[in-house]
């Protein structure tokens, strides 16, 4: 299987603070990769360096075998991105934002279909600003899927969604994965990570503390519930014993 995303020795510093420290990772076609870690562990910086919106200090990144700085226009025909903070124009409506987004790409999916799959097709005429947090989150996943991407980046996938919509989103993503979509996500919900991710990488203060499958992570720890395992990996030194 081909590496859709490959990162080698990625390092990013802000002044004297090393936000991302020598990270290596690779994501194969048709798999879901989860980047985990506490707030401030370096997840968003890693994603931004991979996407090329931040410039790494060291290391190499390739998406579909291309350099995101040099071949930006080509890569982003086939890569969808949902950023943690939604970016949209004041007063724009759902249908306008979808049409606007679709116009940026050569080939696109029918966004009406996506909107109804995500249960927000009745919001077409609503201003994006007036959607609930969950509806807006679903809309931005739709926007990431409009270019019929081969790879999607979803930063904080289901933050703000209710239990039902979370399940719906998982189902849709699992189906898309079956069809060969490669998914790179970050999430704070370990149930979601367990269900969706083939591979995970846990970051702690910019360094990788675990890389592998969820099952492997559980085996390496003294716990059985994945959420406990995750906390065990990310807890600061010295706190592990207290929790045992």
């Amino acid at each position, binding site marked *: 299987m081909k590496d859709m995303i490959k990162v080698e020795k990625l390092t990013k510093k802000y002044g004297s603070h090393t936000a991302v420290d020598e990270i290596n990772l690779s994501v194969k076609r048709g798999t879901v990769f989860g980047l985990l870690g506490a707030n401030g562990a370096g997840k968003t910086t890693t994603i931004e360096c991979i996407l090329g919106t931040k410039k790494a200090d060291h290391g190499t990144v390739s998406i579909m075998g291309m350099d995101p700085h040099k071949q930006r*226009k080509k890569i*982003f025909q086939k890569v969808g991105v949902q950023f943690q903070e939604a*970016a949209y*124009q004041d007063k724009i409506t759902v249908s306008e934002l979808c049409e606007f987004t679709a116009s940026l790409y050569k080939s696109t999916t029918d966004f009406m279909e996506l909107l109804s799959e995500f249960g927000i097709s009745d919001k077409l005429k609503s201003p994006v600003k007036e959607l609930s947090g969950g509806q807006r989150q679903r809309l931005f996943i739709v926007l990431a899927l409009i270019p019929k991407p081969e790879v999607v980046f979803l930063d904080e996938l289901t933050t703000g969604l209710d239990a039902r919509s979370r399940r719906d989103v998982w189902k849709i993503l699992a189906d898309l994965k079956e069809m060969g979509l490669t998914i790179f996500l970050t999430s704070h919900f370990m149930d979601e990570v367990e269900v969706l991710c083939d591979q995970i990488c846990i970051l702690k203060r910019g360094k990788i503390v675990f890389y592998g499958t969820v099952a492997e992570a559980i085996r390496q720890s003294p716990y059985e519930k994945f959420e406990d395992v995750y906390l065990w990996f990310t807890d600061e030194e010295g706190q592990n014993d207290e929790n045992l």
Partner: protein
Amino acid sequence: MMKTFKTMMKIELKLSLRGMDMLLFAICMPVVVLVILGMLYGDKPAFAGADYTFLEQSFGALATISICAGGVMGLPLVVSDYRDKRILKRFQVTPVSPLLILSIQVAIYTLYALVSLLLIYLCAVIFFDCHFQGSLPKFLAYYLLVTLSMFSIGIMVGGIAPNTKTAGVWASVLYFPMLVFSGATLPYEIMPTALQKAASLMPLTQGIKLLKNASLDLPAENVLIPFLCMSVVALVCIAVSLKFFKWE
């Protein structure tokens, strides 16, 4: 590419019209000022023995009201807003350059300016019996230069202001004095000499001199200084924007 431009233009124009403020300041205001000046001065000559009327003399000035509104009010606000809202950054992860959305905005404000120009021209000719005596190609060329110059101020302010709030303050500081004291609304010719001198320091005043020169067919030697002023402002602002523009 054409499809992208058309769709974006259509949606951004809708959003801009939904905002109402440009409709008011760039389209309605010039007409209102024209009507007021027309009623006050009617078809009186600009001065004793002048071969053009006061209103004909003011035409070049009125034509800049919408350029000023779009350039130093509309553009700085929208550019800084799109940066603060991370819309420019969002474009970096699409096949389209963030420059495209900026050029769409420039196109929209140019459109406002041209619509306003046409509108005040028609009003002046139909209701106040004005005649355009100068050279139209020359007028349009100067008009584009003034637009370029004012818009480059706007892009620069929007591009380097740390946030939308600051951009708003800078825009107001530029817009209101220029609107009132550059001769765009209050005719330069009726200002006291001291005020005229102060007004001449504003770039828009120079732009208006340029346009009046073309519309009234005045001697060409008066054009050099305003022409240089406009060109230097445009060059400096474009250079500063290229160097210091903040995408996020």
